[in-house]
């Protein structure tokens, strides 16, 4: 575990309002009680013929999650096969527990990446990973719930913000016939933990989610108790990424595919989205996001778990 990731874990455990550590302490055994439901035996008992509706729902939930079991975590070469299996089972267990704690969300792809990042941050401690992801989903569940209201609101915000803040990028997008939906789903639904993004972007986004000062009036207007985590700052991170990549996006505006290829060019992203450049772009993007309190209130509401 890198020290930077360790400090991020400490930030999430200690940050007032997130209080993951408190959740772990105040809910002894909750995770443990939910986790055994993922056992292989339970999975096999529920073969689809069960009349119990809740069992059927749970069975489907587990089946959906298991499809992504091997398609989420990146393992280093030093990680043994048994350790990989243990980590992936922990991931499945956490996602099944979340699906039961937040049945209105259930399971949506992208949550696997978020839970995977939260678990890696906490060195695969199931309880801490569970409550960190739960805290994120309380404020960002609208990205994943049926109908994806948070995602729709985020796309609408980006469609307005990009021409205002980055007119050259907006012009290039128009020339290439590109809308934010085409590149931002992977960013938003993984909360910037997507493979295509540098690790420092993920870390900066998650640091801001746990620590940025969200205007209390906007939170109150949205009916949100407490002010953290600020999952909406993922939109500012998206804007910052576009700002860093702006010099490459204009020349790539020859067609849709050429434009979108910029977001899959690892070398180019590594060069253009280096930590200092991203930090320089991220701070004003957060300021811009927080400046319009009416828009922010709408975003907080749409992002919140239904």
């Amino acid at each position, binding site marked *: 575990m890198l020290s930077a990731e360790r400090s991020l874990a400490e930030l999430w455990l200690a940050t007032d309002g997130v209080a993951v550590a408190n959740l772990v302490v105040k809910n002894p055994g909750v995770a443990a009680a939910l986790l055994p439901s993922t056992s292989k035996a339970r999975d096999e008992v529920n073969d689809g013929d069960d009349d119990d509706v809740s069992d059927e729902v749970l069975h489907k939930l587990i089946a*959906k999650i298991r*499809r*992504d079991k*091997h*398609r*989420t975590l990146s393992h280093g070469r030093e990680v043994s096969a048994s350790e990989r299996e243990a980590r992936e089972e922990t991931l499945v267990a956490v996602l099944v527990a979340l699906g039961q704690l937040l049945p209105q969300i259930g399971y*949506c*792809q*992208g949550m*696997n*990446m978020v839970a995977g990042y939260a678990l890696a941050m906490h060195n695969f401690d199931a309880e801490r990973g569970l409550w960190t992801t739960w805290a994120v989903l309380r404020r960002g569940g609208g990205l*994943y719930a*049926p*109908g*994806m209201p948070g*995602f729709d609101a985020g796309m609408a915000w980006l469609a307005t913000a990009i021409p205002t803040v980055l007119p050259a990028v907006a012009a290039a997008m128009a020339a290439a*016939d590109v809308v934010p*939906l*085409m590149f*931002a*789903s*992977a960013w938003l*639904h*993984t909360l910037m933990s*997507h*493979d295509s993004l540098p690790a420092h972007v993920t870390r900066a986004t998650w640091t801001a989610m746990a620590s940025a000062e969200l205007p209390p009036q906007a939170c109150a207007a949205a009916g949100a108790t407490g002010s953290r985590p600020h999952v909406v700052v993922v939109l500012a991170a998206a804007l910052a990424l576009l700002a860093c990549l702006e010099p490459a996006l204009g020349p790539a505006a020859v*067609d*849709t*595919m050429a434009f*979108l290829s910029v977001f899959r060019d690892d070398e180019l992203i590594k060069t253009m989205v280096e930590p200092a450049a991203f930090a320089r772009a991220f701070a004003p993007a957060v300021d811009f996001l927080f400046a319009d309190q009416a828009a922010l209130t709408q975003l907080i509401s749409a992002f919140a778990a239904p």
Partner: protein
Amino acid sequence: YTVVLIGDSAVGKSNLLSRFTRDEFSLESKSTIGVEFATRSISTDDGKVLKAQIWDTAGQERYRAITSAYYRGAVGALLVYDISKYETFSNVERWLKELRDHAENHIEVMLVGNKSDLRHLRVVMTEDAEAFAQENGISFIETSALDASNVEEAFSSILTKIYEKVSRKSMNSDAAGSGKTKPMANNASKVIVVDNENDDAAPAKKKKCC
């Protein structure tokens, strides 16, 4: 041509795409979030180069609101199921309805039974899938992204069919004296036919498809 890859989660859509465009396969590929894409050009028997833009979509139902936006500009769809998971075949009908609701009327559809290397785990019989395809007027093939069997054939076949269809329509249109085809709302739906001697970077001779 714009082609979409659709079908249930974990049937192997992304690996079919990576096998076709980069000749790569990974057992550890990540689940697709939203929409991914890739391009590749192939040559036809009459010496044309067809440039394919392929959208690879997330299979989970919740993403359909996002991914269905891509059907509108597509002229072809590979509807993929897993021969070792019956549910993924049962859901093919729902995917066809998605296409009927959101795609162009004349979209070319091919049913693709993937993971044909998993012979010992097969639960969807080839004859059943063939019969389904016939009933619904779509073509059918079985593939394995893992061992590469029929992957090239699947993509080449659908691209060639689209090319033939577009060429026929273009000729009919010319014969009718209009000389023009219906404009599309989305640039991504442009049919791009490039002369064989030109590479992808060269300016393409563009036609609009119907």
